[in-house]
Protein backbone atom coordinates (compact mmCIF):
# COMPACT_ATOMS: atom_id res chain seq x y z
CA UNK A 1 0.00 0.00 0.00
CA UNK A 2 1.41 3.40 -0.88
CA UNK A 3 1.87 5.96 1.85
CA UNK A 4 -0.40 8.97 2.11
CA UNK A 5 1.11 12.40 1.70
CA UNK A 6 0.16 15.83 2.94
CA UNK A 7 0.08 18.69 0.38
CA UNK A 8 3.40 19.84 1.87
CA UNK A 9 5.26 16.65 0.96
CA UNK A 10 7.25 18.34 -1.82
CA UNK A 11 8.12 21.25 0.44
CA UNK A 12 9.51 18.80 3.01
CA UNK A 13 11.62 17.09 0.36
CA UNK A 14 12.92 20.36 -1.03
CA UNK A 15 14.00 21.29 2.48
CA UNK A 16 16.04 18.07 2.61
CA UNK A 17 13.77 16.18 5.00
CA UNK A 18 14.23 12.49 5.63
CA UNK A 19 10.79 10.97 5.13
CA UNK A 20 9.45 7.98 7.06
CA UNK A 21 6.26 5.96 7.33
CA UNK A 22 4.25 7.23 10.29
CA UNK A 23 0.80 5.66 10.74
CA UNK A 24 0.55 5.09 6.99
CA UNK A 25 1.66 8.62 6.15
CA UNK A 26 4.92 9.67 4.60
CA UNK A 27 6.08 12.30 7.06
CA UNK A 28 9.32 14.22 7.68
CA UNK A 29 11.27 12.75 10.59
CA UNK A 30 13.95 15.41 10.42
CA UNK A 31 15.10 18.18 8.13
CA UNK A 32 18.59 18.95 9.38
CA UNK A 33 19.13 17.55 12.84
CA UNK A 34 16.79 16.44 15.62
CA UNK A 35 18.94 18.21 18.21
CA UNK A 36 19.04 21.56 16.43
CA UNK A 37 15.33 21.37 15.52
CA UNK A 38 14.53 20.58 19.17
CA UNK A 39 16.53 23.60 20.36
CA UNK A 40 14.87 25.85 17.77
CA UNK A 41 11.50 25.09 19.38
CA UNK A 42 12.77 25.64 22.93
CA UNK A 43 14.61 28.85 22.02
CA UNK A 44 12.83 30.41 19.01
CA UNK A 45 9.94 28.99 16.95
CA UNK A 46 9.37 25.83 14.99
CA UNK A 47 6.63 24.81 12.58
CA UNK A 48 5.29 21.26 12.28
CA UNK A 49 3.16 19.79 9.50
CA UNK A 50 0.80 17.58 11.49
CA UNK A 51 -1.85 17.35 8.80
CA UNK A 52 -1.95 13.58 9.29
CA UNK A 53 -3.83 14.11 12.54
CA UNK A 54 -7.60 13.74 12.55
CA UNK A 55 -10.41 16.30 12.56
CA UNK A 56 -13.72 14.90 13.75
CA UNK A 57 -16.60 17.35 14.11
CA UNK A 58 -19.47 16.67 16.50
CA UNK A 59 -22.52 18.88 16.06
CA UNK A 60 -26.05 18.93 17.39
CA UNK A 61 -28.18 19.79 20.39
CA UNK A 62 -26.76 16.88 22.41
CA UNK A 63 -23.09 17.53 21.55
CA UNK A 64 -22.27 18.59 25.12
CA UNK A 65 -24.00 15.58 26.68
CA UNK A 66 -22.54 13.17 24.15
CA UNK A 67 -18.93 14.33 24.42
CA UNK A 68 -19.15 14.36 28.20
CA UNK A 69 -20.29 10.73 28.01
CA UNK A 70 -17.49 9.56 25.69
CA UNK A 71 -14.59 11.52 27.19
CA UNK A 72 -13.07 11.88 30.66
CA UNK A 73 -14.07 15.55 30.82
CA UNK A 74 -17.43 17.20 31.61
CA UNK A 75 -18.00 19.43 28.60
CA UNK A 76 -20.65 21.41 30.54
CA UNK A 77 -17.64 23.12 32.11
CA UNK A 78 -16.35 24.28 28.71
CA UNK A 79 -17.15 27.78 27.50
CA UNK A 80 -17.20 28.71 23.82
CA UNK A 81 -13.60 28.88 22.65
CA UNK A 82 -12.21 26.52 25.31
CA UNK A 83 -9.91 23.64 24.38
CA UNK A 84 -9.50 20.64 26.63
CA UNK A 85 -7.08 17.72 26.58
CA UNK A 86 -8.82 14.49 27.65
CA UNK A 87 -9.00 10.75 27.07
CA UNK A 88 -11.53 8.58 25.26
CA UNK A 89 -11.92 5.30 27.16
CA UNK A 90 -13.52 1.92 26.63
CA UNK A 91 -15.75 0.37 29.29
CA UNK A 92 -12.69 -1.03 31.11
CA UNK A 93 -11.30 2.48 31.51
CA UNK A 94 -8.58 1.74 28.95
CA UNK A 95 -7.47 4.58 26.71
CA UNK A 96 -8.57 4.29 23.09
CA UNK A 97 -6.96 7.63 22.30
CA UNK A 98 -6.09 11.00 23.76
CA UNK A 99 -7.43 14.09 22.06
CA UNK A 100 -8.03 17.78 22.41
CA UNK A 101 -11.68 18.75 22.33
CA UNK A 102 -12.31 22.21 20.86
CA UNK A 103 -15.49 23.98 21.90
CA UNK A 104 -16.40 26.00 18.83
CA UNK A 105 -19.87 26.55 20.31
CA UNK A 106 -22.06 24.48 22.64
CA UNK A 107 -23.52 22.76 19.59
CA UNK A 108 -20.28 22.34 17.61
CA UNK A 109 -17.13 20.62 18.75
CA UNK A 110 -13.91 19.51 17.07
CA UNK A 111 -11.85 16.50 18.17
CA UNK A 112 -8.27 15.98 17.01
CA UNK A 113 -7.41 12.29 17.38
CA UNK A 114 -4.09 10.71 16.44
CA UNK A 115 -3.69 9.70 12.78
CA UNK A 116 -3.59 5.98 13.56
CA UNK A 117 -6.78 6.18 15.66
CA UNK A 118 -9.14 8.15 13.45
CA UNK A 119 -11.13 5.15 12.25
CA UNK A 120 -11.27 3.49 15.65
CA UNK A 121 -12.44 6.72 17.27
CA UNK A 122 -15.03 7.35 14.55
CA UNK A 123 -16.43 3.82 14.96
CA UNK A 124 -16.47 4.18 18.73
CA UNK A 125 -18.22 7.55 18.64
CA UNK A 126 -20.83 6.32 16.14
CA UNK A 127 -21.45 3.11 18.14
CA UNK A 128 -22.12 5.11 21.29
CA UNK A 129 -24.17 7.93 19.80
CA UNK A 130 -27.55 6.19 19.41
CA UNK A 131 -29.17 7.94 22.35
CA UNK A 132 -27.89 11.38 21.42
CA UNK A 133 -28.97 13.96 18.88
CA UNK A 134 -25.58 14.48 17.24
CA UNK A 135 -23.99 14.45 13.81
CA UNK A 136 -20.46 13.04 13.77
CA UNK A 137 -18.34 13.84 10.74
CA UNK A 138 -14.80 12.77 9.96
CA UNK A 139 -13.30 15.63 7.95
CA UNK A 140 -9.68 14.54 8.45
CA UNK A 141 -9.09 14.34 4.69
CA UNK A 142 -10.24 17.92 4.14
CA UNK A 143 -8.26 19.72 6.83
CA UNK A 144 -4.63 20.58 7.48
CA UNK A 145 -3.03 21.13 10.85
CA UNK A 146 0.12 23.11 11.41
CA UNK A 147 1.69 23.56 14.85
CA UNK A 148 3.68 26.73 15.49
CA UNK A 149 5.61 26.28 18.73
CA UNK A 150 8.23 28.12 20.75
CA UNK A 151 8.81 31.38 22.62
CA UNK A 152 8.74 33.33 19.32
CA UNK A 153 5.54 31.63 18.11
CA UNK A 154 3.07 34.25 19.44
CA UNK A 155 5.01 37.01 17.69
CA UNK A 156 4.99 35.09 14.39
CA UNK A 157 1.28 34.35 14.74
CA UNK A 158 0.62 38.05 15.26
CA UNK A 159 2.70 38.93 12.22
CA UNK A 160 1.02 36.26 10.06
CA UNK A 161 -2.66 36.43 11.02
CA UNK A 162 -2.78 39.58 13.13
CA UNK A 163 -4.21 37.64 16.06
CA UNK A 164 -3.22 36.12 19.37
CA UNK A 165 -4.58 33.17 21.35
CA UNK A 166 -4.38 32.35 25.02
CA UNK A 167 -3.34 28.94 26.21
CA UNK A 168 -6.11 26.38 25.51
CA UNK A 169 -8.34 28.98 23.84
CA UNK A 170 -9.33 29.11 20.22
CA UNK A 171 -10.11 31.82 17.70
CA UNK A 172 -11.89 31.29 14.41
CA UNK A 173 -10.75 33.43 11.50
CA UNK A 174 -12.96 32.84 8.45
CA UNK A 175 -12.62 29.08 7.93
CA UNK A 176 -9.43 28.68 9.96
CA UNK A 177 -9.23 27.70 13.62
CA UNK A 178 -6.27 28.95 15.64
CA UNK A 179 -5.85 27.43 19.09
CA UNK A 180 -3.38 27.95 21.91
CA UNK A 181 -2.42 24.28 21.89
CA UNK A 182 0.47 22.04 20.91
CA UNK A 183 2.52 19.12 22.14
CA UNK A 184 5.87 20.63 23.00
CA UNK A 185 5.25 22.41 26.31
CA UNK A 186 6.12 25.73 24.68
CA UNK A 187 3.98 28.75 23.91
CA UNK A 188 2.39 28.63 20.51
CA UNK A 189 -0.61 27.55 18.56
CA UNK A 190 -2.05 25.08 16.15
CA UNK A 191 -3.70 26.23 12.94
CA UNK A 192 -6.40 24.04 11.45
CA UNK A 193 -8.07 24.85 8.15
CA UNK A 194 -9.15 23.61 4.70
CA UNK A 195 -6.44 21.51 3.09
CA UNK A 196 -6.03 23.73 0.02
CA UNK A 197 -4.86 26.62 2.24
CA UNK A 198 -2.01 24.83 3.94
CA UNK A 199 0.75 26.04 1.62
CA UNK A 200 -0.15 29.70 2.17
CA UNK A 201 0.25 29.34 5.92
CA UNK A 202 3.35 27.13 5.77
CA UNK A 203 5.21 29.33 3.30
CA UNK A 204 4.33 32.56 5.12
CA UNK A 205 5.43 31.26 8.51
CA UNK A 206 8.65 29.69 7.17
CA UNK A 207 9.45 32.98 5.39
CA UNK A 208 8.99 34.80 8.70
CA UNK A 209 11.57 32.55 10.31
CA UNK A 210 9.71 29.55 11.73
CA UNK A 211 12.04 26.54 11.52
CA UNK A 212 10.51 23.36 10.01
CA UNK A 213 10.52 20.58 12.63
CA UNK A 214 10.19 16.85 11.98
CA UNK A 215 8.59 14.06 13.96
CA UNK A 216 11.95 13.15 15.53
CA UNK A 217 12.15 16.40 17.46
CA UNK A 218 8.39 16.30 18.07
CA UNK A 219 9.06 13.07 19.98
CA UNK A 220 11.95 14.43 22.09
CA UNK A 221 10.03 17.65 22.79
CA UNK A 222 6.94 15.80 24.04
CA UNK A 223 9.03 13.32 26.03
CA UNK A 224 10.90 16.06 27.92
CA UNK A 225 7.46 17.25 29.05
CA UNK A 226 6.22 13.75 29.91
CA UNK A 227 3.44 13.85 27.32
CA UNK A 228 2.01 10.52 26.15
CA UNK A 229 2.60 9.02 22.72
CA UNK A 230 -0.31 6.99 21.39
CA UNK A 231 0.67 3.48 20.35
CA UNK A 232 3.74 3.61 22.56
CA UNK A 233 2.93 4.87 26.08
CA UNK A 234 -0.59 3.55 25.75
CA UNK A 235 -1.54 0.86 23.32
CA UNK A 236 -4.92 -0.49 24.29
CA UNK A 237 -4.69 -1.87 27.81
CA UNK A 238 -3.59 1.14 29.89
CA UNK A 239 -6.10 3.25 31.80
CA UNK A 240 -5.99 6.99 32.43
CA UNK A 241 -4.99 6.26 36.05
CA UNK A 242 -2.16 3.99 34.87
CA UNK A 243 -0.76 6.83 32.80
CA UNK A 244 -0.84 9.12 35.87
CA UNK A 245 -3.16 11.51 34.06
CA UNK A 246 -5.93 11.65 36.69
CA UNK A 247 -6.07 15.42 36.12
CA UNK A 248 -7.89 14.82 32.83
CA UNK A 249 -10.76 13.12 34.68
CA UNK A 250 -13.75 15.02 35.98
CA UNK A 251 -15.13 12.46 38.43
CA UNK A 252 -18.37 14.39 38.89
CA UNK A 253 -19.96 13.22 35.69
CA UNK A 254 -20.95 9.94 34.06
CA UNK A 255 -18.67 8.75 31.28
CA UNK A 256 -17.67 5.50 29.63
CA UNK A 257 -14.97 3.84 31.70
CA UNK A 258 -15.77 5.71 34.93
CA UNK A 259 -16.92 2.62 36.84
CA UNK A 260 -13.71 0.74 36.06
CA UNK A 261 -11.60 3.72 37.10
CA UNK A 262 -13.47 4.10 40.40
CA UNK A 263 -12.67 0.47 41.18
CA UNK A 264 -9.04 0.85 40.14
CA UNK A 265 -8.65 3.92 42.36
CA UNK A 266 -9.18 1.72 45.41
CA UNK A 267 -6.31 -0.61 44.50
CA UNK A 268 -2.54 -0.43 44.11
CA UNK A 269 -1.29 -0.09 40.57
CA UNK A 270 1.83 0.91 38.66
CA UNK A 271 1.86 4.43 37.32
CA UNK A 272 3.70 5.86 34.36
CA UNK A 273 6.77 7.57 35.82
CA UNK A 274 9.83 9.32 34.52
CA UNK A 275 13.16 7.53 34.46
CA UNK A 276 16.23 9.77 34.42
CA UNK A 277 19.54 8.19 33.49
CA UNK A 278 22.41 9.28 35.76
CA UNK A 279 25.09 7.50 33.70
CA UNK A 280 25.86 8.59 30.18
CA UNK A 281 23.73 6.92 27.55
CA UNK A 282 20.51 6.97 25.59
CA UNK A 283 17.35 5.19 26.73
CA UNK A 284 15.18 3.31 24.24
CA UNK A 285 11.63 1.95 24.33
CA UNK A 286 11.74 -1.64 25.58
CA UNK A 287 14.81 -1.25 27.83
CA UNK A 288 14.33 -3.26 31.04
CA UNK A 289 14.22 -1.45 34.40
CA UNK A 290 15.63 -3.17 37.50
CA UNK A 291 15.11 -2.41 41.18
CA UNK A 292 17.21 -4.29 43.73
CA UNK A 293 18.42 -6.50 40.89
CA UNK A 294 14.89 -7.57 39.98
CA UNK A 295 13.34 -6.62 36.68
CA UNK A 296 10.32 -4.48 37.48
CA UNK A 297 9.29 -3.01 34.13
CA UNK A 298 10.23 -1.88 30.65
CA UNK A 299 10.43 1.58 29.16
CA UNK A 300 7.52 2.58 26.95
CA UNK A 301 9.37 5.65 25.68
CA UNK A 302 13.06 6.43 25.78
CA UNK A 303 15.46 8.87 24.20
CA UNK A 304 17.97 11.53 25.05
CA UNK A 305 16.90 14.93 26.29
CA UNK A 306 18.68 17.39 24.00
CA UNK A 307 18.37 20.06 26.70
CA UNK A 308 19.45 18.01 29.75
CA UNK A 309 21.83 15.91 27.64
CA UNK A 310 20.72 12.90 29.66
CA UNK A 311 18.85 9.74 28.86
CA UNK A 312 15.14 10.04 29.71
CA UNK A 313 12.29 7.57 29.51
CA UNK A 314 8.83 6.60 30.74
CA UNK A 315 7.85 3.37 32.45
CA UNK A 316 4.88 1.88 34.29
CA UNK A 317 6.41 1.38 37.70
CA UNK A 318 5.27 0.96 41.30
CA UNK A 319 8.20 2.73 42.98
CA UNK A 320 8.53 5.97 44.93
CA UNK A 321 9.99 9.08 43.32
CA UNK A 322 13.79 9.11 43.69
CA UNK A 323 14.03 5.30 43.89
CA UNK A 324 17.35 4.21 42.44
CA UNK A 325 17.04 1.81 39.54
CA UNK A 326 19.24 0.38 36.83
CA UNK A 327 18.25 0.30 33.19
CA UNK A 328 19.59 -2.37 30.89
CA UNK A 329 20.89 -0.71 27.76
CA UNK A 330 22.48 -3.00 25.17
CA UNK A 331 23.38 -5.57 27.82
CA UNK A 332 24.79 -3.12 30.37
CA UNK A 333 23.15 -1.91 33.56
CA UNK A 334 23.19 1.89 33.78
CA UNK A 335 22.24 3.85 36.89
CA UNK A 336 19.13 5.96 36.95
CA UNK A 337 16.27 7.01 39.17
CA UNK A 338 12.54 7.45 39.19
CA UNK A 339 11.54 11.09 38.76
CA UNK A 340 8.41 13.16 38.40
CA UNK A 341 7.61 14.39 34.94
CA UNK A 342 8.03 16.81 33.27
CA UNK A 343 11.77 16.31 33.02
CA UNK A 344 12.08 20.04 32.38
Amino acid at each position, binding site marked *: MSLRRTPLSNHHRELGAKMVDFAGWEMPIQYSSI*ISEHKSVREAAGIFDVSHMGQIFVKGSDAVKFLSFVTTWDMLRQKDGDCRYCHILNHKGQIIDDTIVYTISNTEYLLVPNASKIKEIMDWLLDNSNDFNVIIEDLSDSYFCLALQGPEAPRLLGQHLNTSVNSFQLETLNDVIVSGTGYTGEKGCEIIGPLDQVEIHWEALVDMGAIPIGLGARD*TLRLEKGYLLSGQDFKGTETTLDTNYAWVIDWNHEFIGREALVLQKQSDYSKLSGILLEDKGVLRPGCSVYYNNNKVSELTSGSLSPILRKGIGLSYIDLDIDSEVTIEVRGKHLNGRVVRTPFL
Partner: protein
Amino acid sequence: MSEVPDNLSYTKDHEWMLIDDDGKIRVGITDHAQDALSDVVFVELPEIGSKYSEGDAMAVAESVKAASDIYAPVSGEIVEVNDKLEESPELINESPYEFGWMVVMVPDKKLENSLDSESYRKLID
Protein backbone atom coordinates in the same frame (compact mmCIF):
# COMPACT_ATOMS: atom_id res chain seq x y z
CA MET B 1 27.25 14.88 -1.66
CA SER B 2 29.26 13.02 0.94
CA GLU B 3 32.97 13.65 1.22
CA VAL B 4 35.18 10.64 0.42
CA PRO B 5 38.88 11.55 0.81
CA ASP B 6 41.21 9.76 -1.62
CA ASN B 7 43.93 9.00 0.93
CA LEU B 8 41.76 6.69 3.04
CA SER B 9 40.62 3.08 2.79
CA TYR B 10 37.00 2.11 3.43
CA THR B 11 34.77 -0.80 4.43
CA LYS B 12 31.33 -1.62 3.12
CA ASP B 13 30.12 -0.92 6.69
CA HIS B 14 31.03 2.76 6.17
CA GLU B 15 34.19 2.93 8.24
CA TRP B 16 37.31 4.69 7.03
CA MET B 17 40.87 3.61 7.78
CA LEU B 18 44.04 5.65 7.68
CA ILE B 19 47.11 3.47 7.57
CA ASP B 20 50.04 5.09 9.40
CA ASP B 21 53.65 4.59 8.42
CA ASP B 22 54.16 2.31 11.42
CA GLY B 23 51.33 0.01 10.25
CA LYS B 24 48.76 1.19 12.81
CA ILE B 25 45.28 1.85 11.51
CA ARG B 26 43.19 4.84 12.57
CA VAL B 27 39.46 4.14 12.27
CA GLY B 28 36.37 6.32 12.10
CA ILE B 29 33.03 6.43 10.31
CA THR B 30 32.53 8.09 6.95
CA ASP B 31 30.81 11.35 6.17
CA HIS B 32 28.04 9.31 4.54
CA ALA B 33 27.62 7.25 7.73
CA GLN B 34 27.53 10.26 10.06
CA ASP B 35 24.95 11.89 7.82
CA ALA B 36 22.77 8.78 7.86
CA LEU B 37 23.08 8.48 11.65
CA SER B 38 22.44 12.20 12.13
CA ASP B 39 23.27 13.76 15.53
CA VAL B 40 25.59 11.40 17.37
CA VAL B 41 24.79 11.91 21.05
CA PHE B 42 26.69 9.07 22.69
CA VAL B 43 29.67 6.95 21.76
CA GLU B 44 30.78 3.79 23.48
CA LEU B 45 34.40 2.99 22.73
CA PRO B 46 36.34 -0.24 23.36
CA GLU B 47 38.96 -0.59 26.07
CA ILE B 48 42.60 -0.05 25.18
CA GLY B 49 44.25 -3.45 24.92
CA SER B 50 41.10 -5.28 23.85
CA LYS B 51 41.26 -7.45 20.75
CA TYR B 52 38.70 -7.88 18.00
CA SER B 53 38.30 -10.03 14.95
CA GLU B 54 37.37 -8.44 11.66
CA GLY B 55 33.63 -7.75 11.64
CA ASP B 56 33.18 -7.80 15.45
CA ALA B 57 31.10 -4.99 16.95
CA MET B 58 33.76 -2.96 18.78
CA ALA B 59 32.02 0.35 19.40
CA VAL B 60 28.59 1.93 19.34
CA ALA B 61 27.48 5.31 18.02
CA GLU B 62 24.06 6.39 19.22
CA SER B 63 21.91 9.04 17.63
CA VAL B 64 18.65 10.35 19.06
CA LYS B 65 16.76 7.74 17.07
CA ALA B 66 18.99 4.64 17.04
CA ALA B 67 22.14 2.86 18.17
CA SER B 68 24.55 1.66 15.50
CA ASP B 69 27.35 -0.84 15.94
CA ILE B 70 30.77 0.07 14.62
CA TYR B 71 32.60 -3.02 13.39
CA ALA B 72 36.30 -3.80 13.58
CA PRO B 73 37.52 -3.26 9.99
CA VAL B 74 40.39 -5.66 10.58
CA SER B 75 41.44 -8.16 13.26
CA GLY B 76 43.73 -6.62 15.81
CA GLU B 77 44.28 -4.82 19.08
CA ILE B 78 42.97 -1.44 20.19
CA VAL B 79 45.90 0.77 21.17
CA GLU B 80 44.28 4.21 21.33
CA VAL B 81 40.74 5.55 21.66
CA ASN B 82 39.45 9.08 21.08
CA ASP B 83 38.48 10.10 24.63
CA LYS B 84 37.20 13.46 23.38
CA LEU B 85 34.15 11.69 21.95
CA GLU B 86 32.93 10.98 25.48
CA GLU B 87 32.30 14.67 26.15
CA SER B 88 31.82 15.73 22.52
CA PRO B 89 30.24 12.95 20.49
CA GLU B 90 29.15 15.59 17.96
CA LEU B 91 32.76 15.64 16.68
CA ILE B 92 31.77 12.61 14.63
CA ASN B 93 29.22 14.74 12.76
CA GLU B 94 31.32 17.87 12.59
CA SER B 95 34.62 16.31 11.60
CA PRO B 96 34.18 12.64 10.69
CA TYR B 97 37.65 12.26 9.09
CA GLU B 98 39.68 14.27 11.58
CA PHE B 99 38.56 15.13 15.12
CA GLY B 100 35.86 12.46 15.02
CA TRP B 101 38.24 9.49 14.69
CA MET B 102 37.30 6.61 17.02
CA VAL B 103 40.15 4.16 17.61
CA VAL B 104 43.68 3.23 16.56
CA MET B 105 44.32 -0.48 16.02
CA VAL B 106 47.42 -2.60 15.49
CA PRO B 107 46.25 -5.10 12.89
CA ASP B 108 47.19 -8.76 13.03
CA LYS B 109 47.85 -8.81 9.32
CA LYS B 110 47.85 -6.57 6.27
CA LEU B 111 44.56 -5.07 5.10
CA GLU B 112 42.92 -7.25 2.49
CA ASN B 113 39.23 -6.53 2.13
CA SER B 114 39.21 -2.76 2.09
CA LEU B 115 37.76 -0.52 -0.60
CA ASP B 116 39.54 2.41 -2.15
CA SER B 117 37.85 5.80 -2.35
CA GLU B 118 36.51 5.18 -5.85
CA SER B 119 34.91 1.84 -4.95
CA TYR B 120 33.43 3.34 -1.79
CA ARG B 121 31.98 6.26 -3.76
CA LYS B 122 30.25 3.75 -6.04
CA LEU B 123 28.90 1.89 -3.03
CA ILE B 124 27.16 4.94 -1.60
CA ASP B 125 25.98 6.40 -4.92
